[in-house]
């Protein structure tokens, strides 16, 4: 499994692969000259591999097809539960307003309680699944009380337009796209679950190339700050890549958390909480000890 081209190259020619899902930071990073220059100075060059789901990104990372990746928290827990040797190297703060529950534009659903018996779409095994469960739980409901419809976001938005579902639990940019089409947000993940973005590597790459990781994390931090300062530096690129309007992206970037950092103290706590929740929900079979997978910021540089 480890004999993939990119990794063998990384030993000889110091080429490695970054797997990414499209968002402001990763797209900016791909175009960033300083990042590439810094790497080159260390003798590295980068290959980019695009993915459209967190699980496929982490699948590739776990099998050492890529060396660095970004994804959400929930898929990473499944990856760990299934023995993928991945490590958390950086994260953002939780961005509670970047995901939530949308309802049809002219519906009489006003709060979570009204969802009883309604058709709710979300992506199975995703953060939205988790959010749905936790949100319902807060109102004393569970999936038995609603009619879940398992849909990937691109399919769900069409189902929403056709009126085949009443509510849709999803994250940005789909949340914003839904709002743009006149659907209403009745609840977000605020006070319900943490919603972080993470940056990952795998065990082998962490051992062999911590210096490259440091360059990477530093660049992610720097670009995050730049975008936070002025989202309009990213919106044209995002528009070009996704076809969503620049205004929509402005809204997304404004309410999102763009600034990442080396893992701080809250990270392990949140992840452990989520892992325990998943165990309780029966989504994973064995308890996870999250601290062994989290690389604290200093550790990364100390390894050198």
């Amino acid at each position: 499994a480890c004999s993939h081209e990119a990794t063998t190259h990384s030993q000889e020619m110091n080429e490695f692969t970054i797997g990414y899902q499209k968002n402001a930071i990763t797209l900016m990073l791909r175009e960033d000259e300083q990042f590439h220059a810094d790497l080159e100075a260390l003798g590295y060059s980068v290959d980019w591999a695009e993915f459209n789901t967190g699980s496929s990104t982490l699948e590739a990372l776990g099998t050492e097809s890529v060396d660095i990746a970004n994804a959400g928290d929930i898929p990473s827990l499944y990856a760990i539960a299934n023995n993928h040797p991945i490590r958390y190297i950086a994260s953002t703060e939780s961005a509670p307003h970047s995901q939530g529950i949308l309802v049809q534009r002219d519906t009489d659903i006003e709060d979570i309680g009204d969802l009883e018996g309604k058709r709710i779409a979300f992506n199975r095994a995703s953060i939205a699944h988790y959010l749905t469960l936790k949100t319902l739980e807060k109102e004393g409901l569970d999936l038995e009380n609603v009619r879940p419809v398992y849909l990937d976001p691109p399919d769900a938005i069409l189902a929403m337009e056709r009126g085949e579902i009443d509510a849709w639990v999803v994250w940005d940019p789909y949340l914003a796209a839904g709002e743009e089409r006149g659907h209403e947000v009745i609840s977000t993940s605020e006070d319900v679950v943490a919603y972080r973005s993470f940056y990952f590597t795998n065990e082998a790459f962490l051992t062999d190339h911590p210096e490259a990781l440091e360059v990477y994390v530093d660049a992610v931090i720097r670009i995050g700050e730049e975008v936070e300062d002025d989202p309009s530096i990213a919106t044209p690129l995002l528009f070009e890549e996704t076809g969503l309007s620049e205004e929509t992206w402005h809204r997304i970037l404004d309410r999102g958390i763009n600034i990442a950092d080396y893992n701080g103290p809250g990270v392990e706590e949140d992840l452990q909480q989520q892992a325990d929740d998943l165990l309780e929900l029966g989504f994973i079979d064995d308890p996870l000890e999250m601290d062994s997978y989290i690389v604290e910021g200093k550790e990364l540089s100390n390894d050198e």
Partner: protein
Amino acid sequence: MTNKAISNHGLKHVYKSSIAPWVLPIVLLVVWQVSVSTGAMQLIASPYEVLTTAITYTVSGEIFEHIGVSFFRAAVGFLIGGGLGFILGVLNGMSNSSERYTDTTIQMFRNIPILAMIPLVIIWFGVGETAKIFLVTAGVMFPVYINTFHGIRSVDRGLLEMSRIYGISKWHLFTKVILPGAMPSILVGVRYALGVMWVTLIVAETIAATSGIGYMSMNAREFMQIDVIILAILLYSVLGKIADTLAKLLEKRLLNWHPTYQNLRNS
């Protein structure tokens, strides 16, 4: 021939027809178990683990529910799609002008991946059963169409001429001449379609499904349960083998006039 020779011969026959085909699968199974056990193959569940999972799913009855649901979708889609493909193949095979007007269009549709069509299918048919069955229908239609068309077009011209000159009715021309003549090729199409059926079903079962083998397998992928993924793969291959065996039986029945199948029977 002595009795012993006969029973030897019988044993040999049993070996050839019932054991030989399974030698390779069993070898693969052993290689798989060994390479997982020795760590040569990582991240893959071993046959033993998969077996355990299979037992769990079987005991809980979950596996039968998935198979049942998928089977229903597959069967309905197969009947509609196979039927359409057959009818179109017959029309275009028998009529040049029908071919002229529709073959190009069909060839263009044929090439559109199911996956690319999903957004349009959802817009038109929603996310319910209709959409799923539509996708299977679309997938199954084309192999049956192509092979029916080809089969009909390659019926011996001499026999067609004979049938026309003997003033046989259109109906008999079709049932007694063209259809049996095209049958070997049509059955190849059916055999292929039986495979395609499952292949498109997995795509269909990514849309708002809550059961079915495709759902089981895609869900397992989301949860990264490699043992379940492999279980689903094995299920597909077993179902494939069953479908194939049925198709072969059908061939033997329908083509009993054909020297190829007679000889296979004798040997």
